């Protein structure tokens, strides 16, 4: 059975490495500031004892005043998992760093988020629409899309 790590305990480790990089943490998850996302992600992937070498999924939620992007991480070695979130407050031109360089599985899913939410992932090697066609106007999973 996969063990869900406590967000608070992992948050202490990240806070020790990168002070001021977290927004909040709880038992279930931790929220990283978007400009520290890559540092935290690399730390989670490469630190001994954490070794989050597998990305289960990336998804996004529209909370009207901000977008929240969730990363579900797992370690195949230690059989534990963790949910990391980050927030993006710019509605007109939301930008987040891409994690494709760390987990290649994020490739299509970041393209899906780009397609349906309009969030740009900086550093993505091939960021274009995946479900809808080029020329489609708007991003259908945004709450204000009708």
């Amino acid at each position, binding site marked *: 059975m996969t063990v869900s790590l406590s967000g608070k305990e992992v948050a202490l480790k990240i806070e020790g490495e990168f002070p001021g990089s977290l927004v909040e943490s709880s038992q279930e998850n931790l929220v990283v500031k978007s400009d520290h996302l*890559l*540092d935290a992600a*690399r730390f989670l992937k490469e630190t001994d004892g954490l070794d989050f070498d597998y990305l289960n999924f990336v998804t996004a939620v529209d909370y009207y005043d901000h977008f929240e992007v969730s990363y579900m991480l797992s370690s195949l070695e230690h059989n534990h998992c963790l949910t990391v979130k980050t927030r993006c407050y710019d509605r007109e031109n939301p930008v987040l760093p891409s994690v*494709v*360089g*760390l987990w*290649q599985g994020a490739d299509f899913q970041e393209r899906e988020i780009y397609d349906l939410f309009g969030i740009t992932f900086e*550093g993505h*090697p*091939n960021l*274009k*629409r995946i*479900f*809808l*066609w*080029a*020329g*489609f106007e*708007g991003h*259908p999973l945004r709450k204000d899309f009708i």
Partner: protein
Amino acid sequence: MEIKPAGKYIYPDIELDREEGQIIEDLKTNSQESISDPDQWLDEELEQNILLTSVDALINWSRRSSLWTAICFPACCAFEMIAANGPRFDLARFGMEILRASPRQADLMITAGTLTWKMAPNVRRIYNQMAEPKWVIAMGACAISGGIFASASYAVVPGYNRIIPVDVYVPGCPPRPEALIYGIQMLQKKIARRKNIDVRRLLKR
């Protein structure tokens, strides 16, 4: 921090995607009206032929007795279609148990499933690749009108008759195999009525 991609990526050119997007946009713009029943606008001269009914009867009999279906089953109605082809309902009784992987060998397209605008150019291409004469059965609510997606979805074609002319509509969500077989029998009756020989042109020779 810059993180380099772990491997080499092979992706198609963005220009190709834009081209595809333009094709979809053009098709969508030109497909806002339903295409009416082919009987209303097919060649009128053919319909006035009354003399060589025996030839007509022969041609129509041979055509309707071995309708071969092109494989174009995008969604869940396909399973009712497959059930209709299976031993319990046995579509082979009507001479059409063969599903052709190549549309060039098919006469009939059974559109079993929801169609999205992204898929629409491919369905029209399959239809264009089928040799004349050809017929279309719209199977299920999605094929008739877009079904549950008709009013709300930005991505679903509201009925196959925006894309291709439809001969017979089979309602249901999905239709039972009996309903599909009844629809096929209606299509066979429709084919039986068809006039094929232009007599006046023959007499002029």
